[in-house]
C-alpha cells in the first residue's frame, strides 16, 4: 500500500511513464480493494482548465460624500494584450458601481447577473437597492458558486444610506468586508502599501491625508500610474469613476502603454 501512495500524482502523467519507467502495480481505486492494475495508466495529456486570468488592477477610495474608483483598461491573455480599452467598472444603481479584476468572461457574467437582479429589485420595490443590500447580494451571489467560483475579485463601491462613501472588498467566493479603500487584481500587491501610506498615514510625522475630491482623484491616478510602472499587466488607460450625490461620472486618461 505504501508504494501505491507514492505514485499518486495524476496530473500531466506521461501515459508511458507508468508502463515502462515505473512498472509499479497501481490500484486505481486508491488502494481500497486488493486488486491491482498493471497496464499503462491512460490519462489525458492535459485537461481543460476553465479558468484564465486576464489580469489588470482596480482600486477604490471612499471619501466623505463620494467614492473614487480608478482602474486600468488593459486585459491580457498570458503575455498578450487582448484589449487596451476594456472597462472594469459597471454601474449598478445611481449610487453604486462594481469594479472587478480577474477573468473577464466570468466578470461580464457576474456583472450582468447583478444588473438583472437590480432591475428585478427596482421593479418589485420601486426603488433602487441600497449599497449595503448590494454588498450582501454580491457576497451571496459569489458564494452560490462556491464550488465553481467566479474568477472575479471585486470592489463594490457606492454611497451608503447616510450618503457617505463606502467600499466593500471581496474574495472570489464571497467573503467580504467594509473598507475605506481597497485594491484588487494584478497590481494589488503594489498598490496596497501606497494606499495604506496615503490614506492611513501611520508613517507621516505630520498627518496630511487626502480629503478632498481633487486630492483623492490625483492620488488614485498616481497609484495606478505607479502600479503601471512595475506591473506588466497594468497600463494603457486609467478609467476614473466618481460616484457622488449626482450619480456616476466616468472619464478616462491615457497612461503608459508598454
Amino acid at each position, binding site marked *: 500500500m505504501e508504494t501505491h501512495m507514492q505514485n499518486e500524482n495524476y496530473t500531466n502523467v506521461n501515459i508511458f511513464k507508468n508502463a515502462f519507467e515505473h512498472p509499479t502495480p497501481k*490500484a*486505481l*481505486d486508491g488502494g481500497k*480493494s486488493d*486488486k*491491482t*492494475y*498493471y*497496464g499503462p495508466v491512460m490519462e*489525458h*495529456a*492535459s*485537461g*481543460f482548465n*476553465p479558468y*484564465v486570468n*486576464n489580469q489588470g488592477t482596480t482600486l477604490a477610495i471612499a471619501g466623505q460624500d463620494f467614492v473614487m474608483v480608478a482602474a486600468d483598461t488593459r*486585459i491580457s*491573455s498570458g503575455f*498578450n*494584450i*487582448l*484589449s487596451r480599452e*476594456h472597462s472594469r467598472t459597471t454601474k449598478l444603481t445611481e449610487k453604486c458601481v462594481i469594479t472587478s479584476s480577474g*477573468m*473577464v*468572461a466570468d466578470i*461580464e*457574467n457576474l456583472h450582468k447577473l447583478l444588473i438583472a437582479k437590480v432591475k428585478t429589485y427596482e421593479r418589485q420595490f420601486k426603488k433602487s437597492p441600497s449599497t449595503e443590500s448590494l454588498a450582501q447580494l454580491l457576497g451571496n451571489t459569489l458564494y452560490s458558486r462556491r464550488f*465553481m467560483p467566479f474568477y472575479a475579485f471585486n470592489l463594490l463601491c457606492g454611497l451608503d444610506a447616510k450618503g457617505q462613501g463606502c467600499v466593500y472588498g471581496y474574495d472570489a467566493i464571497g467573503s467580504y468586508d467594509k473598507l475605506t479603500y481597497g485594491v484588487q487584481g494584478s497590481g494589488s500587491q503594489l498598490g496596497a502599501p501606497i494606499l495604506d501610506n496615503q490614506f492611513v498615514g501611520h508613517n507621516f510625522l505630520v498627518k496630511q491625508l487626502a480629503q478632498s475630491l481633487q486630492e483623492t482623484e490625483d492620488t488614485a491616478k498616481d497609484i495606478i500610474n505607479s502600479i503601471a510602472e512595475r506591473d506588466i499587466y497594468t497600463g494603457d488607460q486609467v478609467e476614473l469613476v466618481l460616484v457622488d450625490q449626482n450619480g456616476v461620472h466616468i472619464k478616462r486618461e491615457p497612461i503608459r502603454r508598454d
Partner: protein
Amino acid sequence: MEKIVSVKEPTMHTQVPVNIGTSVFGLRYKDGIMLAADTAVSYGSMKKSKKSTRMASLSDEAAIACSGEMADFQELQKILKEKREGDEIENDGATFLKPRDYFNYPSRLNYQRRMKMDPLWNGSIVGGVRKDTGETFLGMVDLYGTKVEGNFLITGLGAHYCQVLMQNAWRPDLSEEEARRLIEDCMRVMFYRDKKATDEIQITKITQAGGVEVEKSYRIGSEWKLEFFKNMTNEFWRPIRIYQ
C-alpha cells in the same frame, strides 16, 4: 498475476483539440472588414489537410473565421445556422441577423460550454458590415467566452508574431490592396515561423456594397533563398553583432 480491473471513469468530454487550425486574422479597412486564415488543418505535427476552409459566411452581412478545433468550428456553424433558420421560420421580422448578434451569441455559447467543462475549442473572429447603416463590426471570442473588439484582431500564435506588424501598418483608411498586402505579409511571417501554417491563404471580404465575399484560396509567394536561410541563423547574425 491478478486480474486486470476495468475501471469506470466519470464521463469525460473532449478536453483536447485534435484537428487544429492555426491563427486567423481580421482587420477593418476603408470599405469594410477583411478576415483571413490559411488552409491547413493539423493533426498533431502532421498537416492532415492542406486545403480546408476555416471561414464561413453567416449571413449576407457577417462572416466568421476560426482557429482551434475544426470539429468544434463545424459544430458552431451548425448551431448558428439552426438558430438563424429557427428565427427565419418564425417570420416575425426579428431574424437573428445583425453582425453583432453573431458575436454575442457565440460568446455566450462558449461561456456556457466552458461552464459544462465541455468547451468549443475555438478562437473565432467575427466580422460584419450592416447593409442598412454601413456600421462595421469586428470581434474576437475565445473558448472561455471572452469578448474582445478591435480594429485588427489575431488569434493563436499569430498574436505573438504579427501583433506589432499590424499595429505599425494599420490605418483606418487602408485601401483594399493595402489591407490585402498587410494580411499577406502577416501570413508570410506565419508561414516562415509557424510549423502548422501553410502558404495557401483564404480571405473573406465584407463590404456594405458587396456583402460577404468568401474568396478562393490562393498561394502567397515565399522566398527561401534569403541569406538568413542560406547561412543559418547564427552565421547570418554574427557579423552584425561584431561590427555594431
